[in-house]
């Protein structure tokens, strides 16, 4: 559609210009012929008076020098003196330079369109000179025809050109889109091809690449900072833990043993908090995509159910897999497993009163939907957004023991797989849905 408008926009003014030029040229020729005739007749009048003029007029009619022209000479009171037109057209008042009008010349069988010139001679006689412009009408018609023909030709040509042009820019846009998609999915090694698609695209591409360079640098810095933070914090904590263990070996009294053990437990808690925070920021930065592999979603659900069912049972909760079709998905099995474990852990902690927890998986157009539902008190709709928010992240990591890295971790993992999480009412209870998409660009096929 855009192409059509574009080719019309270009060809119509060109064709209109051609039409106008041709028409003007034709008119100029007629005008100059009229000028010639007028000059000749007026000069014979000037030289020999009325008689000479009448001779010249008759001569013009006989020899056909006017070539389809009309001529008429009338006296001041309107009586015809010479010419091949019966009477002076009543609406025509001399002097007139160019008036178009249909007349009946004496030898014609039908009215013909003339361009008329009227002038008053020195002694009051009026002279009418007509040039047949019927030809011009024919020419106009065929000109229009020719121009329409040209337009008909120009449209498909313009369309093809437009489509080609559009395709080039579309390909370039798609390329940029692809690269952006991969970057968004956490693979920062891609760059836009700067050589393809013309100067404007090269400019855009180099700007995008400069931006990507910077993003990659920042992510790499984050990775370095988190790694060294992990190392720098963990090493002294490890030493502390070692020394406590050693001290526990020397301590004989039970109270000392207990104190040392509780310090040891606290150190473990701090370490878990560090791990949780690091794990979340790493997943958010897209680290962990290198471990993507194929696995069966159904098996994963059954695994997690099997791991947690005995714990749930001890607390009087039935953990079951409601629906787990055998679907092969490419992702990070460890992280997804951990996320599901977190959700089950949360459901056990907050939805215990409901007496049951159901896990299920479903295949959607985009990928997979995993959900964990409980029949506990749930979370009111207005607080659901908060539950996964940044503020709650630390809160969740702090209050959740063991595997619990909170919903923030689950969301980070979902985003690593181009998905997200959402909280729904289970009427009664809470259902957490984790979506995983299949459209994550795979590093392997690049």
């Amino acid at each position: 559609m855009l192409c059509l408008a574009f080719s019309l926009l270009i060809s119509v003014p060109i064709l209109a210009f051609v039409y106008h030029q041709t028409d003007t040229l034709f008119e100029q020729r007629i005008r100059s012929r009229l000028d010639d005739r007028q000059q000749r007749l007026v000069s014979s009048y000037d030289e020999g008076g009325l008689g000479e003029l009448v001779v010249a007029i008759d001569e013009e009619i006989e020899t056909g020098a006017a070539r389809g022209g009309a001529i008429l000479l009338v006296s001041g009171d309107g009586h015809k003196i010479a010419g091949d037109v019966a009477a002076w057209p009543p609406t025509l008042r001399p002097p007139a330079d160019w008036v178009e009008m249909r007349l009946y010349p004496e030898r014609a069988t039908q009215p013909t369109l003339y361009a008329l010139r009227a002038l008053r001679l020195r002694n009051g006689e009026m002279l009418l000179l007509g040039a047949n412009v019927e030809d011009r009408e024919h020419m106009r018609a065929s000109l229009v025809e020719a121009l329409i023909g040209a337009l008909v030709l120009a449209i498909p040509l313009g369309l093809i050109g437009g489509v080609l042009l559009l395709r080039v820019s579309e390909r370039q846009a798609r390329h940029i889109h692809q690269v952006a998609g991969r970057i968004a999915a956490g693979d920062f090694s891609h760059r836009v091809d700067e050589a393809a698609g013309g100067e404007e695209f090269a400019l855009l591409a180099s700007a995008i690449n400069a931006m990507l360079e910077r993003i990659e640098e920042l992510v790499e810095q984050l990775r370095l900072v988190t790694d060294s933070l992990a190392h720098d914090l963990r090493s002294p904590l490890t030493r502390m833990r070692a020394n406590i263990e050693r001290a526990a070996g020397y301590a004989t009294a039970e109270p000392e043993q207990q104190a040392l053990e509780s310090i040891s437990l606290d150190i473990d808690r701090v370490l878990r908090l560090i791990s949780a925070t690091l794990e979340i920021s790493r997943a958010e930065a897209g680290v962990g995509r290198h471990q993507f592999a194929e696995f069966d979603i159904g098996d994963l659900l059954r695994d997690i159910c099997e791991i947690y069912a005995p714990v749930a049972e001890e607390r009087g909760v039935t953990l079951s897999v409601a629906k787990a079709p055998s679907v092969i998905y490419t992702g990070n099995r460890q992280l997804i497993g951990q996320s599901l474990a977190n959700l089950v852990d949360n459901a056990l902690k907050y939805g215990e009163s409901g007496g049951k927890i159901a896990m299920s998986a479903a295949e959607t157009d985009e990928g997979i939907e995993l959900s964990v539902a409980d029949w506990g008190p749930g979370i009111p709709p207005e607080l659901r957004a908060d539950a996964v928010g940044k503020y709650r992240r630390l809160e969740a990591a702090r209050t959740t023991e063991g595997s619990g890295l909170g919903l923030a971790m689950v969301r980070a993992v979902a985003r690593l797989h181009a998905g997200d999480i959402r909280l729904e009412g289970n009427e009664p209870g809470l259902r957490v849905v984790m979506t995983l998409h299949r459209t994550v660009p795979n590093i392997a096929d690049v």
Partner: protein
Amino acid sequence: MTKKILVVEDDETTSDYIASGLQQNGFVVDRARDGRDGLFHAIDGRYAAIVLDRMLPGMDGLAVLSAMRAAGIETPVIILSALGSTDERVKGLKTGSDDYLSKPFAFSELLARIEALQRRGPAASEPVVTSLSCGDLTMDLLTRRVERGGERIDLQPREFRLLELLLRNHGQVVTRTMMFEEVWDYHFDPGTNVIDVHISRLRRKIDEGAATPLLHTIRGVGYMLGDTP
């Protein structure tokens, strides 16, 4: 013959901690402070196992490991790392380590893993085992039949694998993390009592009504299967 363990670790306290613990448990310990020195020792000496830190001055732990494996040294290696995330772990295992332990760790966890590696031995020379036993508990790996004192015990598939792991390491401590990794193949921390609940179910099946319990809890470390407490 006493077994020699090489500890490659730049942090002095951690290195002391590991070395003294191993010596107390009857191992001879060689120590290296950086990657280059570690590689030199590893290629030179015959070790029962190598404890290798991931982040070392001079030469990174993974580089030492791949150089070692390239030189044909098949000594079992346990990587110690402050990088605990699962992808780092997989990277370590792919490079050719036999086990991966993230810092901080309890010494008992490290010891249990070193001993498990000793039992496993070189994969090629291991004879095919078709049955395992401990006291009057027997497990036939082919028919998947488990009996205690001639009485058949019905086990779920995971319970079977859990018991198999304990039987293969009988007389030695198996930690909770080792169980979670071996039996379920997940590397995250499943939470405090998840493994304990599975063990107590297994214990009910194999020890209930028996005169001598076989499955023992080792406080603060893990579990052990053995006919002597």
